[in-house]
């Protein structure tokens, strides 16, 4: 190349660079409108996470009502119909309002930073996907104040209880689910387009951090599962209002078909809420074990295998609806097969810790708690997967204990771990480690007091979704409720720790918050910039920041 052309190029680049400097490097818009109009992935990530957190508190408040009513036998506080509204909305709000948006928020913050992209692929749609949520959430909650009350048919809204026998507000519930689904699908489209198209030119798919991988696979699950949910509620809508009988046996429909459709969405949904958690834990453990992630490629394949299997096991939620024996056996075999790739992941995490140099800062504490407690939930899941044994577990508190171990000490704990891990990078400030450790132990003890006795309740014969119970269940219910109140209180402390960190936290100084953390997100210095990666990171940087390859001799 001749000198003149190089000079010219340099000059063009300088002008371009300068232009784009003006264009992108102004900070956020002042005022509240910033949050309404923003297309910045970090702003939108923040919005998602705060929305999820407020929904978590609302859904948690509903859980407190449930636990308070179940504190002792008898109907003390609420009517059975209202109790059913609480269990229903607790489930819906936690699944669609708290866990899913929290993961989308983390994806928004982290994916562009982890793949060296400037922003999400479709920033305007990103804004839209978020702003649908508050409206959908408000609509869902507003049903509580309508005549006849809110949805009272469980978060699984089985027909015909949710169609012919449901309160009038159910149409609002249907519309809210449509909106939530729309938001999720748009979010998933954005994640897929970002990961496939916006990666730094030098980053191959197998260079991507595991969090990005798990989210890519999750996004495909969303694309395949959410439209099925939309289909199910659309059929409900026409059954309720336009005289169809998709699920009405007296009109030639089939109520069991509703369950098939629902769980064809519902089971992948379970993995939508746990795969990103696997990703988070796979980022945190190597950092605090000071050792590369064990078995990166087997982790990727295991995640993909879990995702594929998740579409062919939905029948294990329906062992008792009267399936032919061949169906039950097939679903049993397919279900227990999932424990193989899931086991691979757990073994990989344990081996990552093996012969590491472990330290237990708060994110690591939550990640280790995740691995242990999620494994307990997974093992009770294996028990539930054995079809004949499921006869005694199905729709009892054993199931309640199982899915709370998976979703609370699994999904939720991973989100808390992620927030403690990345918050110092997001805001450039460190949280109060001492308080955070106290909070961890408080939460971890109370959550086990809350959910572990529920295994016993289920085996002793207590059905789920009942507002009052026989006296032999009294002791464990009271213990569980006490654990529940303590766990509920822990979130006040969590709120304080987070707000305190953002407002008064000690600034992170001299590099990254965790000296052993690897990943492109840590290359921006002490704090995430409003705009990152004007120039995509080089191959050398990508390799040096990989948390899953060996760095022997590079220190």
């Amino acid at each position, binding site marked *: 190349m001749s000198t003149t052309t190089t000079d010219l190029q340099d000059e*063009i680049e300088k002008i371009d660079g300068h232009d784009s400097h003006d264009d992108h490097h102004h900070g956020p818009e002042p005022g509240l409108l910033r949050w309404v109009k923003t297309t910045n992935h970090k702003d939108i990530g923040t919005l998602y996470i705060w929305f999820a957190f407020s929904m978590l508190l609302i859904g948690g408040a509903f859980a407190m009502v449930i636990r308070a009513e179940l504190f002792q036998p008898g109907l003390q506080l609420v009517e059975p119909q209202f109790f059913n509204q609480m269990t229903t909305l607790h489930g819906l709000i936690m699944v669609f309002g708290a866990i899913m948006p929290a993961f989308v928020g983390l994806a928004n913050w982290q994916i562009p930073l982890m793949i060296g992209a400037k922003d999400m692929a479709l920033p305007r749609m990103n804004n839209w996907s978020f702003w649908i949520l508050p409206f959908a959430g408000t609509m869902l909650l507003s049903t509580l104040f309508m005549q006849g009350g809110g949805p009272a048919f469980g978060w699984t809204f089985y027909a015909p209880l949710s169609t012919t026998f449901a309160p009038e507000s159910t149409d609002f519930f249907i519309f809210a689910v449509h909106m939530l689904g729309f938001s999720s*699908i748009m979010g998933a489209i954005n994640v897929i*387009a970002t990961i496939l*198209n916006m990666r730094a030119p030098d980053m191959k798919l197998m260079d991507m951090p595991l969090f990005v991988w798990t989210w890519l696979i999750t996004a495909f699950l969303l*694309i*395949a599962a959410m439209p099925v949910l939309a289909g199910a509620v659309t*059929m409900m809508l026409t059954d309720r209002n336009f005289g169809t009988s998709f699920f009405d046996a007296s009109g030639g429909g089939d109520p069991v*078909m509703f369950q098939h459709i629902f769980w064809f969405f519902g089971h992948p949904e379970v993995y939508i809420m746990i795969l990103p958690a696997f990703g988070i834990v796979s980022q945190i453990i190597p950092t605090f074990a000071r050792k590369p992630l064990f078995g990166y490629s087997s982790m990727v394949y295991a995640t993909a295998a879990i995702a594929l299997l998740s579409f062919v096991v939905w029948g294990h939620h329906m062992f008792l609806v009267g399936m032919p024996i061949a169906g039950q056996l097939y679903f049993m075999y397919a279900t227990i097969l999932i424990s193989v790739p899931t086991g691979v992941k757990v073994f990989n995490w344990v081996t990552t810790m093996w012969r590491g140099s472990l330290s237990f800062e708060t994110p690591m504490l939550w990640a280790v708690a995740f691995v242990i407690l999620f494994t307990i939930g997974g093992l009770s899941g294996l028990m539930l997967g054995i079809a004949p044994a499921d006869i005694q577990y199905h729709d009892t508190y054993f199931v309640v204990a199982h899915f709370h171990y998976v979703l609370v000490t699994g999904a939720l704990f991973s989100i808390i771990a992620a927030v403690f891990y990345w918050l110092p990078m997001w805001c450039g400030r460190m949280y109060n480690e001492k308080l955070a450790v106290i909070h961890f132990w408080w939460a971890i003890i109370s959550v086990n007091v809350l959910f572990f006795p529920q295994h016993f309740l289920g085996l002793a014969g207590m059905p789920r979704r009942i507002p009052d119970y026989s006296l032999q269940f009294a002791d464990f219910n009271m213990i569980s409720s006490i654990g529940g109140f303590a766990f509920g209180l822990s979130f006040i402390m969590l709120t304080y720790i987070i707000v305190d960190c953002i407002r008064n936290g000690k600034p992170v100084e001299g590099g990254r918050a965790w000296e052993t953390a690897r990943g492109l997100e840590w290359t921006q210095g002490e704090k995430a910039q409003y705009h990152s990666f004007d120039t*995509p990171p080089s191959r050398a940087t990508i390799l040096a920041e990989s948390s899953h390859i060996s760095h022997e001799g590079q220190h």
Partner: protein
Amino acid sequence: MGKSVEELQSMTEEELLKHQRKGARLTALIVAILALGVFSLTLYMKSKS
């Protein structure tokens, strides 16, 4: 689409972004059609049964 790493690296920041965005829009379109397909299929299968 289909550009080599060297080609991508030689692009300016703007060109790269433009190139990436073009691909992203195509991906988004394909995925959106996929989602719509799943939705239609759900209703279709049920109305058949």
